[in-house]
């Protein structure tokens, strides 16, 4: 029917995983895509150099919401290094669809926020 709105994307959009707050998060980061207004807030808990728990809140299109849902599932338990190495190709593969440049920005917002959160965590750790 539609090339982009696959079963799996619609499934994550309808029943997002890891949606909600984490009350005792190590890092909370809010970001938005100025080109479209999509907003996301990421909550993260770390276990040394691993992500122990992650969740998100926010408004946005099906692409950004599904991307956030899939991403949070994917990164749980992964090491910081591994996540920092993730790029746009990886996200597209995860979503399983080919996106135009503009829609790719929607898909990448969650990863961008996640990385910002990690850098902020690393910064805090460094500062002691």
């Amino acid at each position, binding site marked *: 029917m539609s090339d*982009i*709105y696959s079963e799996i994307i619609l499934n994550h959009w309808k029943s997002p995983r890891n949606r909600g707050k984490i009350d005792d998060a190590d890092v909370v980061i809010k970001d938005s895509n100025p080109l479209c*207004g999509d907003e996301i807030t990421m909550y993260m808990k770390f276990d040394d150099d691993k992500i122990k728990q992650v969740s998100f809140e926010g408004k946005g299109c*099906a692409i950004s919401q599904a991307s956030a849902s899939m991403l949070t599932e994917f990164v749980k338990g992964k090491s910081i290094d591994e996540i920092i190495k993730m790029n746009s190709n990886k996200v597209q593969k995860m979503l399983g669809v080919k996106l135009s440049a503009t829609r790719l920005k929607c898909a990448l917002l969650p990863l961008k926020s996640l990385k910002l959160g990690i850098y902020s965590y690393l910064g805090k750790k460094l500062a002691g």
Partner: protein
Amino acid sequence: MKKYRKDFPILKRKINGKRLVYLDSAATSQKPIQVINAIANFYKTFNANIHRSIHTLGEEATKAYEEAREAVASFINAEHKEEVIFVRNTTEALNIAAFGLRNIVKGKLLLTEMEHHSNLLPWQQLAKLKHLELDFISFDKDGYLDEPEEKLKGASVLAITQASNVLGTINPIKKITEKAKEYGTIVVVDGAQSVPHMPVDVQKLGIDMLAFSAHKMLGPTGIGVLYAKKELLEKMEPVMFGSEMIKEVSFTEATWNELPYKFEYGTPHIAGAVGFKAAIDYLQEVGMRNVRKHDERITTYALKRLKNIVSIIGPKKAEDRSGLIAFTMGDIHPHDIATILNEEGIAIRSGHHCAMPLHRKLGIQASARASFYLYTIKEDVDALVEGLKKVREVFER
């Protein structure tokens, strides 16, 4: 106005194998071949820098540039042609309006809650710079502006859009300028969505300043207009400095050139002016009354066909609206609507349309918007309706 479609080469394009259904004219209009050729012809036969220029090409280019100014002046019925300042776009026009008034404004600056960022940010910044109060005229649940009466008190400027790019509302400018005059308020009108779509007579409407862009009215990108009454322009200060805009310059001092050059800095977009004139000629050939009638007809039809599938934003009556309809579809994000429509060859816009505070007030984050122009046909609206049904199917399966 089907017969004009053949003048627009882009309408022959196929998108994803489908006929292009262009419903994004409020963002930028398509261009007729007459405009495209006028620009090419300028570069091919009389391209030169203007003013101060004694050679034949320079004289011809100067003449064409000034004829474009005259065409604009007569299009909006300005009293003097030097009241027409060529700028980059509506946004720049509104910035020059705001900052050009920096030594004149006092008391409060009055806006409306339905302004585009381009008619909000310059005044926000001016208010910061001059420590002035900002006040806003609100609008009701149907998208009609509330009575400005008491808010005008103490307002040195009212900045207001003639047609909202989200609600579609056409504001009663004449009524408002009449009231504003009682309070001595300067009325700055954002004409980005009105000048392309209906007859606008600055003298009849009592408008002090008017901003609009060529690219939304069949013309080229990179050129727009700030119209302002001569007495006002004379009191205003330039905002950008250099080249043509001076009379005398020493290492430490400068005096300004006469109007309109005082506000035009550096080499202008000469080819843009030439193309702009061709666009105005085209619109006048069609007749602005006919453009408006067509908009109203298409909008009436679209309102009727859309009202059961989507939630329409703004006034219910086509006669109070310009040729655009913004809407939402429950949970489905406007970006997703736009993406699916694009698969069907249909181009609409989605997002906050540079009106974030307006959307926030409506309690939504974004909307989808279909917008029309003289080349829009009923079949385009039909395609949109079919496309929206597909959107539902995708998200409800």
